């Protein structure tokens, strides 16, 4: 591994033009890997890695959290959620707080845990908080199809599923941003392939490299971006060839659109993005928590000083937010970027707060 890294480093040197280069890693797991392995310490100082909106927990809107909290307040049901989601603050509470106060909330590893519980307990209503990008959405599709097959009437999902390419489009069109290259998410791309990113190099001249998650993968991908920049040949390249095929996983993609329809979606920090979300098709209405547990007015309030929006766009580094490490810490997160261990603020707080970089 060390040899591969050394080689990658030498190629980064080779292609480095010493001009400032902003590379956005779109995926939260990349953010974590970069921080956890201290990869910034291995990069030349002109290469600036910025963390994009690639943590699904971080971009879940307070509106959705508040809606889920309203549902469990007013209905007797058992809620299943992935781990990180339960700490995300809504306006007044979080799922974790509700769990401590006795609400029936289970942290699950897989959507099938929720489905299996619903099958075994037909008299108990089960709500699965379906969060995630294209990697996770097909899993929700499979359980919804199965719920239909079993003719369940006690299983519901609250979809906060989101699509990555529409958010990237918003970012590249934002005149304030100056992104010179994208490290594209490896596991999202395992599903959607490389084609959906092509508009970025083609229309905006920005290199895209789909990267794996080992330190060497990320370093090689950075070298690939620098190479594209040096020769002015922007394109979508796949570094993570072992799992990402250009066409992606067609069965998984089909599963997504068998069950879901594209819809507008609210992103925390980025606001509403047209066609960036997924809602259940009418055929599956009876499993849709939003239709079955409607709520009246939700007026989410957020701390106006929270800069998660600019952090998600890469306009600010976490320490540039006024609340960072002061009012907003992983114990008492204000914004979602601090909640998820994948969030850029949490990764900074945990691994880079003491300015160890480049020492």
């Amino acid at each position, binding site marked *: *591994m*060390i040899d591969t*890294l050394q080689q990658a480093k030498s190629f980064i040197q080779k292609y480095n033009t010493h001009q400032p280069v902003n590379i956005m890693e779109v995926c*939260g*797991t990349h953010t974590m890997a970069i*921080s*956890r*392995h*201290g*990869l910034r*310490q*291995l990069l030349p100082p002109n290469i600036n890695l910025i963390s994009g909106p690639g*943590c*699904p*927990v971080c971009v879940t809107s307070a509106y959705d959290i508040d809606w889920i909290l309203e549902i469990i307040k007013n209905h007797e049901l058992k809620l299943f959620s*992935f*781990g*990180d989601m*339960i*700490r995300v603050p809504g306006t007044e509470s979080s799922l*974790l*707080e509700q*769990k*401590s*106060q006795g609400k029936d909330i289970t*942290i*699950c*590893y*897989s959507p099938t*845990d929720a489905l*299996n519980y619903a099958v075994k307990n037909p008299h108990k209503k089960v709500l699965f908080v379906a*969060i*995630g990008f294209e990697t*996770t959405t097909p899993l929700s599709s499979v359980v919804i199809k199965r719920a239909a097959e079993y003719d369940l009437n006690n299983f519901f999902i609250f979809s906060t599923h989101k699509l990555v390419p529409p958010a990237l489009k918003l970012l590249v069109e934002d005149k304030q941003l100056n992104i010179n290259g994208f490290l594209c998410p490896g596991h999202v791309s395992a599903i959607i392939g490389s084609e959906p990113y092509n508009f970025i190099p083609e229309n905006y001249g920005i290199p895209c490299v789909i990267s794996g998650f080992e*330190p060497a993968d990320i370093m090689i991908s950075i070298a690939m971006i620098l190479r594209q920049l040096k020769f002015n040949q922007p394109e979508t390249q796949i570094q993570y060839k072992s799992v990402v095929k250009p066409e992606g996983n067609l069965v998984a993609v089909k599963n997504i659109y068998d069950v879901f329809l594209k819809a507008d979606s609210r992103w925390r920090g980025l606001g509403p993005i047209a066609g960036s979300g997924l809602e259940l098709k009418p055929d599956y209405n009876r499993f849709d928590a939003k239709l079955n547990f409607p709520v009246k007015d939700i007026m989410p309030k957020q701390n106006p000083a929270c800069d998660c929006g600019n952090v998600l766009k890469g306009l600010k580094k976490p320490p540039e937010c006024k609340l960072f490490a002061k009012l907003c*810490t*992983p*114990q008492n997160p204000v914004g979602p970027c601090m909640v*998820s*261990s*994948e969030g850029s603020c949490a990764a900074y*707080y*945990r*691994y*880079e*707060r*003491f300015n*160890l970089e480049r*020492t």
Partner: protein
Amino acid sequence: MNNRKKFEDQIIQLSHGDGGLKTSQLINNLILDYLGNSTLNKMEDSAIIETGGSRLAFTTDSFVVNPIFFPGGDIGKLSICGTVNDLATTGCTALGLSFSLIMEEGFPTKHLKKILASIKATSLEAGVNIITGDTKVVEKGSVDKIFINTSGLGIIKHGLSLSTEKIKAGDKIIINGPIGDHGISILSQREEFNFKSNIISDCAPLNSMVDEIISRSRRIHALRDATRGGLATVLLEMADTSNHSMNVYSKNIKVTNEVKGICDFLGLDPLYIANEGKMVMFVDARDADIVLKTIRQNKYGQQASIIGEVGPKGSCSVILNTEIGTRRMLDMQYGEQLPRIC
């Protein structure tokens, strides 16, 4: 963590009991606020009492593990090892243990027999007797099956003094084997994960190992039982109380493949996973090799390694040197270590 702030949480959450930052806040900002005194405030694994020319070590621990039977042990074995190991951090000879039992009505006697047999076997191995006890039975649902509390009293040999205060720059940090086995063996029992592995809890009484090292070296400075919160939490607490920085090296911290496998599946970090048979030892560099050799001769220390060293006084940071030659800070774990998919 002596900056005593107000405890602001309105309700107690599971994470207040996980040994991480929330636990530390509960203790420092609430419990010590009411009950603090010069002995308790030291927050060592065992309290030291000086009386009549003798120095006594006193400790207590409650056991609420679920499931009560797990690969490599059960709640009974755990309840002896936990207290024996807390006493062992002072290097004392155990005089006796107390044993309190709280059971839910309906608890099967055959399970109790199994737990008692394992308590007998473990206390025999550790060479310590149960000398006082208590039993309570509560209504169904008031506790989960069975809870056990044990306390332990020991006498410290003349002239021996192990304490966080003795840690100094240059000390080597030793641990007696791979980390995370206990926590992961418990977690992997959860049905919905459907893991199959050969991981067994490292639950073990370490008092004989400690006896062996203190008989070989007079330059052992401090010992700490790395239970809840895992190795990282112990290092951070020791750095904080001793006011020294610490440097540890990833490549020297052993993690079995299977523990790594389950951690990878669930997105957990073995540095924060509980152990029940791992002692973190701070030893003067001059004696590090002989201590290491002695530990490795004990059956609970065959895979012992020197994982790092104590840095200069004044900064309480713990730096992890990664296998790729970079450095990062370790931080207290905040909130439960949850299985996460993202």
